[in-house]
């Protein structure tokens, strides 16, 4: 829910960053100073570089900070406009500000400075300011627009992959489970009842999965419920060995990680073995990290229709990267007779 809401907000928003934030102001300071250096170098006069640079810096920073202050105030209003309107409004306001400051500067130097600080005519000075400002403002706004589009597309892509994954593996499992329940309904009503409850719990866990992290305890419970349903269907062909007692159950993990991994292991491994086999799930604590592996046998001559598998894996990889950056490892070993996935991620037992 939270992620979906953030996405919706981003879609409606214009692309301006928060100009009241200290970080943004610092970036603007640096960029303005760079512009000042470029402009000074362009009109280089031997022997007077530092003097020229200080004059130029003062002028450019004055424009930059006043622009930032204005953008800070008008942003809430501008954001409610469309992208094009926001662009036009900001561009016009900033350009007007530049012209005003150019005029003020010209008048001030004329009144206070005896010597000629600005070696140019009135019109020439204002004209240069106008042209340079137009170009710099247009470039800056274009940059902001492109980078906001880029951030937005990343978020949207991540969301769409998550929902694709959530929708992807379900049908096969869902219909098979319903078929099992239909069979049990008469031969073993008590078991059928259990299975319906398990299926309901599992579906609920899936629907709640948008909260991006859950505790290991919840994750393992979801996987155990899933295992119970599959066991009814596959009988003696399915064995799962859990070795996870060492794990701190309060630790957080991106939600719906373990159950999809078990689902993969069964769908691509156990189900394709006539005699079935054993999925081995182990969890350990390694210093500040948690390490989690899941290993399943695979049929030697299986046709390896592994696109679903790869999809699920790249999705998990992406979510771990999103949650932990480079501090998480997701490793897949695809050998001839076994498939194994290893997850290593920082142990976070913080309160939810």
């Amino acid at each position, binding site marked *: 829910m939270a992620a979906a809401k953030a996405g919706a907000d981003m879609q409606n928003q214009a692309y301006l960053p928060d100009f009241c934030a200290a970080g943004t102001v610092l970036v603007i300071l640096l960029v303005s100073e760079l512009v000042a250096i470029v402009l000074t170098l362009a009109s280089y006069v031997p022997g007077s570089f530092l003097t020229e640079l200080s004059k130029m810096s003062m002028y450019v920073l004055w424009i930059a900070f006043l622009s930032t202050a204005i953008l800070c105030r008008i942003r809430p209003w501008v954001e409610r406009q469309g992208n094009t309107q926001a662009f036009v409004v900001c561009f016009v306001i900033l350009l007007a500000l530049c012209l005003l400051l150019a005029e003020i500067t010209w008048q001030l130097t004329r009144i206070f400075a005896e010597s000629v600080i600005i070696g140019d005519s009135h019109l020439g000075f204002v004209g240069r300011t106008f042209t340079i400002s137009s170009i710099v403002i247009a470039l800056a706004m274009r940059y902001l627009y492109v980078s906001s589009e880029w951030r937005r597309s990343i978020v949207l892509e991540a969301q769409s992959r998550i929902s694709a994954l959530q929708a992807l593996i379900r*049908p*096969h499992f*869902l*219909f*098979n489970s*319903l*078929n*099992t*329940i*239909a*069979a*049990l309904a*008469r*031969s073993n009503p008590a078991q059928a009842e259990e299975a319906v409850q398990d299926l309901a719990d599992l579906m609920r866990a899936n629907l709640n999965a948008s909260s991006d992290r859950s505790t290991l305890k919840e994750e393992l419970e979801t996987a155990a419920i899933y295992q119970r349903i599959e066991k*009814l*269907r*596959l*009988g003696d*062909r399915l064995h799962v060995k859990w070795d996870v007692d060492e794990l701190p159950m309060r630790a957080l993990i991106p939600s719906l990680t373990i159950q999809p991994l078990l689902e993969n292991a069964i769908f691509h491994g156990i*189900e*394709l*073995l*006539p005699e079935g086999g054993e999925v081995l799930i182990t969890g350990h604590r390694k210093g500040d990290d948690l390490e989690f592996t899941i290993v399943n046998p695979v*049929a030697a*001559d299986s*046709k390896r229709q592994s696109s679903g598998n790869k999809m699920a894996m790249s999705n998990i990889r992406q979510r771990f990267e999103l949650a932990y950056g480079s501090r998480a490892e997701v490793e897949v070993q695809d050998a001839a007779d076994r498939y194994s996935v290893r997850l290593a991620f920082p142990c976070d037992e913080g309160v939810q």
Partner: protein
Amino acid sequence: MKVLIVDDEAPARDRLRRLVEESGEHSVVGEAGNGRQALELVGQVHPDVVLLDIRMPGMDGVETARHLDQSRDPPAIVFTTAYDQYAIDAFDANAIGYVLKPVRRERLEQALRQAARLGRGVLEDAGRQAGMDEQRHHVCARIHDELKLIPIDEIFYFVADQKYVTVVHQNGSDLIDDSLKSLETEFADRFVRVHRSALVAVSMIDALKKDDSARTRVILRPGAGEDELVVSRRHVAEVKRRLKKG
């Protein structure tokens, strides 16, 4: 009608059995947990219809169906599936009967009534459209009423003799119904044509040699038989190329 149920999941078989039996018109003559068992059973129980799960370990439903087609009196086939969108699209396109699990009683009865025998061509087309492996893992020989599966890995070569194709493999030789042409197409990556009437497994060839009358012959690997098949002149270059490629 006599129905054979093939599904790897016990609850699924139980339910189908009950539905068939409750119809009153049909009877279940056997159950199999995988494709191989199904092929063994079919010669013993002679079903009219086989209810065949698509996704099964070892040999999937489509390959099983292609082998069933070789039995003396091929049964009609109705596929069952929980969810296989590609397969379903392909079945619809080729008018192949199927039912979706959980199966509805009325739908099953309708499918049994309309069940039809499927030619191998139809199944190959459907398999291809569904993106399933069109290459079988076995070829199938019929010995009296029994179907015998011969794993592709164990085959040395195929030779055509007028009407029949003989497959020579680890455990002897058998006659099969496939044509040399269709075998060549299906297993193009593993077999090479050495002569108008012979197809040899590339992995089983040890070397080529010239005999006294300057004809090229194939020497098979040790254990793959003593026969020295003649390589016809127009195939020599291709055989050499394939051997180099390994």
